[in-house]
């Protein structure tokens, strides 16, 4: 989202609201960014509670609204929520794997005022797609893509890249052309949640990345004016971290299925922070006053080298969750930064993942941990959870 610069004097507004309607999903992508312990959060918000969230966030300034999950289509009240959101003035985005979206449902969503659909693929053809999705969904996705087109929506395809499919970017883009896509996001996996668990098997090599980028650039040139191609690099291979959510509590607000309000997808993992729940508190207080949303806001929390670094206004010191997940301290410099004291951790991760490539990479998914309820329970027994972790 573009903004008029950093506009420091004006208090930040949550312009982007991401409503994760459910953690349920019929797919099992091993790169899923949902928390590994998603199965512990079963008490999902009701329709009325979501409606309250929509009203409160809109009052605070939210304009872009994403419905995601899990798989948001699992919620039967999706149409109700879309209609409500549209009436409030939101631009409504549905972020889906396309599961079970048929003509009747899409018709109902369109009538409710849905503005846009982003459809994700796991692979460019059936075999790989369905193996990574852990379900036979490729044909269904193609059908959904055609429906999206027929209903007159701009078509936005999201291709998540990882080691085994990144050499097939050309196939992805050919598929996008064939389906008549308007926007294509080639999004390298970001290593949170399930993706982090599977990092050694998902992270591509630098050579793979460079080749993929060349291919993406070539298609971008060729398709200029017809299809927009975005290529999102995995930050592990960058010298500087990504400006995570454009700064903590700066314009992004996520409400998880159980009502927990978060400044980004992965923030739940950070120990010592109590993230407020929309069941107990008003979003206005949560956004403006709550300790959790103010913890890493602005620049005062920073240590060196970020504290005196001229680039802090651009990248906000990187991602707090990544700092915690990799370096064990959320107030550290994101280890992706080459100036970070613990940058070595990222280099080590790359080295390990690259060492693993030769042997298994192209051959099989042995060892991939699929995102499902069984694995969630197995990996995260309730006792292991930090008492403050929710």
């Amino acid at each position, binding site marked *: *989202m*573009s*903004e*008029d610069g950093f506009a420091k004097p004006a208090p930040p*507004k949550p*312009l982007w609201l991401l409503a994760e309607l459910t953690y349920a999903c019929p797919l099992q992508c091993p790169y899923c960014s949902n928390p590994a312990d998603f199965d512990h959060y079963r008490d999902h918000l009701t329709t009325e509670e979501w409606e309250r969230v929509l009203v409160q966030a*809109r*009052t*605070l*300034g939210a*304009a*872009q609204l*994403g419905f995601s999950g899990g798989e948001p289509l699992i919620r039967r009240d999706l149409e109700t929520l879309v209609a409500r959101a549209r009436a409030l*003035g939101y*631009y409504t*985005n549905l972020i889906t794997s396309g599961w079970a979206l048929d003509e009747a449902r899409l018709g109902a969503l369109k009538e409710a005022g849905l*503005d*846009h659909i*982003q459809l994700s693929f796991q692979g460019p053809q059936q075999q790989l797609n369905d193996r990574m999705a852990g379900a036979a969904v490729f044909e269904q996705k193609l059908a959904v893509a055609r429906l999206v087109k027929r209903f*007159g*929506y*701009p078509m*936005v395809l999201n291709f998540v890249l990882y080691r085994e499919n990144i050499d097939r970017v050309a196939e992805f883009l050919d598929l996008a052309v064939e389906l008549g896509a*308007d*926007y294509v996001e080639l999004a390298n996996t970001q290593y949170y949640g399930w993706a982090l668990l599977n990092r050694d098997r998902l992270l591509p090599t630098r050579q793979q990345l460079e080749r993929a980028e060349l291919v993406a650039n070539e298609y971008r040139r060729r398709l200029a004016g017809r299809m*927009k191609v975005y290529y999102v690099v995995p930050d592990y291979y960058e010298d500087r971290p990504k400006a995570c959510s454009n700064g903590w509590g700066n314009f992004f607000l996520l409400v998880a299925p159980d009502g927990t309000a978060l400044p980004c997808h992965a923030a739940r993992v950070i120990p010592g922070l109590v993230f407020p729940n929309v069941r107990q508190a008003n979003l206005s207080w949560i956004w403006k006053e709550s300790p959790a949303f103010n913890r890493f806001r602005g620049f005062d929390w920073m240590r060196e080298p970020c504290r005196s670094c001229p680039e802090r206004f651009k990248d906000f010191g990187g991602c707090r969750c990544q700092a915690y997940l990799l370096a064990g301290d959320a107030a550290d410099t994101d280890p992706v930064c080459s100036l970070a004291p613990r940058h070595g951790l990222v280099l080590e991760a790359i080295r390990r993942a690259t060492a693993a490539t030769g042997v298994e990479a192209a051959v099989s998914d042995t060892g991939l941990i699929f995102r499902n309820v069984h694995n969630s329970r197995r990996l995260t027994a309730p006792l292991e959870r930090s008492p403050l972790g929710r």
Partner: protein
Amino acid sequence: MALSDQAVLSLSPGFRFQWEPAQQTHVLLFPEGMVKLNASAAEIIRRCDGSRTLGAIIDELGHSFTGDTVEDDARSFVERAYERGWICEARAA
């Protein structure tokens, strides 16, 4: 890429133009994005409604804004908006 004065302009599919009370500004909303518009940009986008030609839009702006560069500024904004895919040609007049 140059647009002719006869081109009838409209917002691209999936784009929405609206007033944002919380930000006290007009915005253009589109898939996963948003841009804030200043007053004159908003007056141009407002008129890209599928019924006016570029020539007519520039003409109308000349009446609501004063200054020597109104016409040039408007043209260059329209060109940029067109190149970025915010607006498109509805049909030839």
